[in-house]
């Protein structure tokens, strides 16, 4: 027996739940705008985790000690695991559209599914390996903890698992950076060099402050539906507050010499990155983007025989 309600009644009921901080579940009624915003956000998040594993994994064999090798293997495993959790959440949301994991993979290879800009960047040195764990994961933690109270239940639950594991990632990255910062002159230079090259990408991690910079911004919808609470700019400011003092304490110089903290406004003042590059990178034109996509696509196709072999034939429940 199902309740017959109009769209307006459904919507009113739905917004009431949001206001009361009740969780929305996968099979609840939800407006298309909510469903589509979640699908876009969560699948991008999930694929970013998986694609992020590729530059990091390059350091598994090259890591200069057994302990570091193991640490990176565990970190990359977590990232694949996070990708799995998020894709599952996205897949359940896409079910009404008849889309499956197979579709997600194809959309990724064709370029229809975007992934996070930082994972398009190169990781040529051991300094990059450390920096990714320290600052990139640091940025990810700030972004993710902001959504722990998300209105969409499955996403909130996935994020809880993810954030718990990110703690080790951040510490692993810090351990690498600390050893370098306390090491030889060459090792110290490795860190500074990595910071210089990653700075712009880190600024762009949180997305543009508003639609004017790049022509669109999803943050209004995600805030309206209580998927997140802070804006892109607030998150970026949080990042600066947490990490700039630490960077300075290790003797690093900020690549942006104009940057300072305005005590009156309680804001970090900094030079904007080149946002035109942001759009290009998102459109998969970043330096390593094509290579990494190709890697995954090749592997997926080469292994199709495995999935075909194990697919049960006949009616599937």
């Amino acid at each position: 027996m199902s309740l017959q309600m109009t769209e307006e009644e459904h919507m009113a009921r739905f917004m009431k739940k949001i206001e009361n901080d009740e969780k929305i579940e996968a099979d609840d009624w939800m407006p298309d705008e909510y469903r589509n915003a979640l699908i876009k956000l969560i699948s991008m998040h999930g694929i970013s985790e998986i694609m992020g594993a590729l530059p990091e994994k390059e350091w598994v064999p090259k890591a200069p000690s057994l302990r570091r090798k193991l640490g990176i293997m565990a970190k990359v495993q977590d990232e694949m695991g996070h990708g799995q959790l998020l894709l599952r959440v996205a897949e359940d949301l896409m079910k009404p559209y008849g889309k499956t994991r197979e579709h997600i993979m194809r959309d990724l290879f064709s370029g229809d599914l975007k992934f996070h800009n930082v994972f398009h960047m190169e990781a040529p040195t051991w300094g990059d390996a450390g920096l990714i764990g320290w600052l990139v994961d640091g940025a990810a933690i700030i972004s993710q903890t902001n959504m722990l109270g998300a209105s969409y239940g499955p996403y909130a639950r996935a994020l809880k698992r993810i954030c718990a594991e990110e703690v080790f990632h951040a510490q692993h990255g810090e351990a690498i950076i600390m050893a370098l910062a306390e090491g030889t002159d060459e090792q110290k230079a490795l860190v500074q060099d990595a910071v210089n090259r990653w700075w712009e990408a880190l600024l762009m991690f949180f997305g543009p402050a508003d639609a004017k910079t790049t022509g669109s911004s999803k943050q209004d919808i995600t805030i309206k539906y209580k998927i997140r609470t802070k804006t892109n700019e607030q998150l970026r400011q949080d990042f600066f507050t947490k990490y700039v003092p630490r960077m300075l304490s290790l003797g690093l110089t900020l690549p942006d010499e104009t940057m300072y903290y305005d005590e009156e406004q309680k804001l970090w003042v900094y030079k904007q990155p080149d946002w035109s590059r942001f759009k290009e990178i998102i459109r998969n034109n970043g330096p390593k983007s094509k290579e990494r996509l190709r890697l995954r696509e090749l592997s997926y196709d080469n292994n199709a025989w495995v999935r075909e072999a194990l697919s049960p034939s006949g009616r599937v429940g």
Partner: protein
Amino acid sequence: MSDKGQNFYQEFEVFSKRSDGAPMQHQFSLLAPNHELAMVMAQENFMRREPVADIWVVKRSDLRMMTPEERESVKRLDNKDYRNAKGYGYLKKKWRQYEQEMLDEKEIMSWGELVKKK
């Protein structure tokens, strides 16, 4: 896109318990082509950093889950204290009159511990 291999992706729900005495808990869902592979995937995907005493994998299509409407109607009236300790709190004062302590939930559940210590 080929149709072959589509059935590879079937949904399984994973349950586990941390120790012998603990209850089974739902963890998360994963995709696998059959129960055996789902079982092989389960522990390392969701419980790699915690102790595990037992694991169940269940095909999602075998679960009879509630609809959103059913979830709305699962609430109960709060008029049933005849069947829980709340309804018998007045006994505490009565026993005091007889200079005895009340055998409440906390007290009774602690008796299990005395037995274990043997």
